[in-house]
């Protein structure tokens, strides 16, 4: 009985879709565009987060010690800093190590070697490099190093340049996200209005049947389900087109995206592989949004008519 009724409701939904085929296509196109904006938002978010992560891995706080600071004092400061919960790693580079690294880097430059040998002492200071667990923690860590008790040992804390770049990146990400959210919102409202009118027109073309259905004792569920199912059908088709387009575009553009955003990085980032491995999240979000918009608009439209 339930199976037969469901089959009839489904058949009526397909008939509705066919009878208003151009309107159904228009609704499908608008819904697909909305979902593509959501896909875009998703990709921007993933790439943006990845760029930030990659960049922030390269950012650190460099603490330059005064020449008077002893190895023991430096060790104490390092252990204090590494005990912080927001610090991922610390690394001390002694003045000798720093000189060796500097020499190695400029081994082909005789003028630098000559200048160094003319100096009576090692000009490079002891330094401590700190990597935070998240870029947002750098300000706090940097401030903690400005504690007066450290002032006699620390010459300088280098962080401001990196801070500005990180803040700029976070700001750009936020602007892109907000714009995409706004566009998604506008499209969502458009989809709801168009879907609402599609169902109203469908109801109009079926008004005779609906009146007779009511007359012969059709339940409200039996009358309204085909219209809701029709809009769900539009949602499913839209999600299928949107997801297929998204994956095809990501597959085609993954290399360019990697080259553009992650050039010169040790590990390449494959956005297509990422999307494939997170397909449940992406498809789930699009299905959720599409079905919610479809069911809400058609439910309101039918309910208003049946009242």
């Amino acid at each position, binding site marked *: *009985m339930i199976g037969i009724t469901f089959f009839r409701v489904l058949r009526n939904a397909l008939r509705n879709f066919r009878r208003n085929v151009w309107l159904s296509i228009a609704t499908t196109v608008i819904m697909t565009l909305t979902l593509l904006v959501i896909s875009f938002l998703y990709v921007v978010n993933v790439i943006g987060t990845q760029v930030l992560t990659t960049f922030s891995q390269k950012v650190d706080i460099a603490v330059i010690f005064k020449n008077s600071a002893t190895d023991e004092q430096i060790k104490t400061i390092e252990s204090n800093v590494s005990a912080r919960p927001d610090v991922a790693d610390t690394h001390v580079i002694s003045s000798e190590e720093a000189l060796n690294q500097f020499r190695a880097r400029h081994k082909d430059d005789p003028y630098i070697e000559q200048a160094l040998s003319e100096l009576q002492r090692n000009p490079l200071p002891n330094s401590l490099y700190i990597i935070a667990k998240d870029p947002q923690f750098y300000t706090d860590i940097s401030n903690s190093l400005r504690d007066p008790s450290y002032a006699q040992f620390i010459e300088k804390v280098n962080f401001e340049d990196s801070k500005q770049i990180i803040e700029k990146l976070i700001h750009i990400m936020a602007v892109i996200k907000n714009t995409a959210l706004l566009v998604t919102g506008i499209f969502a409202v458009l989809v709801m209005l168009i879907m609402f009118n599609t169902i109203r027109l469908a109801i109009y073309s079926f008004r005779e049947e609906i009146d007779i259905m009511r007359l012969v004792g059709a339940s409200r569920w*039996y009358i309204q389900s085909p219209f809701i199912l029709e809009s769900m059908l539009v949602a499913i088709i839209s999600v299928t087109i949107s997801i297929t387009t998204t994956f095809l575009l990501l597959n085609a553009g993954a290399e360019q995206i990697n080259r553009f955003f992650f050039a010169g990085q040790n590990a390449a980032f494959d956005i297509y592989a990422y999307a494939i491995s997170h397909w449940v999240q992406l498809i789930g979000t699009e299905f959720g949004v599409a079905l919610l918009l479809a069911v809400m608009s058609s439910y309101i439209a039918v309910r208003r008519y049946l009242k």
Partner: protein
Amino acid sequence: MITFTKVSKGYSDQSPALSDITLSIPTGDFVSIVGQSGAGKSTLLKLLSAEEKPSDGSIVIDGWDITKIKNWQVPYLRRQIGVVFQDFKLLPKFTAFENIAFAMEVGGADPKEIRSSVPQILKLVNLVDKANTYPNEMSGGERQRVSIARALAYKPQILLADEPTGNLDALNSWDIVQLLIKINKLGTTVLLATHNDDIVNALKKRVITLNQGKLVSDQEGGTYKL
């Protein structure tokens, strides 16, 4: 048994469509409801099929007070009451068979039941040979018989016929009335709202006369008097 107790129906800006109606109709009765246009005949039938709700009073059908009916119960009530209209209300793109099957589908009948019941109903209304004919290929009388057949799809206890002969010539009108008598003889209570005095006088059944929403006469074996 249908019982109306002090039933009134008013619309905000008009005089009441029905006023203080009290009457009983035993199961299996055949009742003609007569009155001029606007007397309240259609309103009385609409109250029975819960298309309208009374402003006052109660209507009880076999112990079920339908004035207190919930929205979700309306379909169940309508499956017990067949309704026939002056304008037939048939689906033009459906054949006679499909029009009747449509009503059965809506009620959840399974395909096997539809296949076996529809020909029987068509036989009852004498339209077996028109099963695959579309409404626009039929005469008015045939269309009304399809409409009656559809109303019988659920084997209703009550059949409400609102001016079923209003669009028909005398010959077809008599065919329809004969069919209603046949259905009544099978045990269905029939309420016939009509203007047609010839039919009412010839029927020699109970006649309820309404005038400006009031019950002015209720006679067994009555005649059309206005």
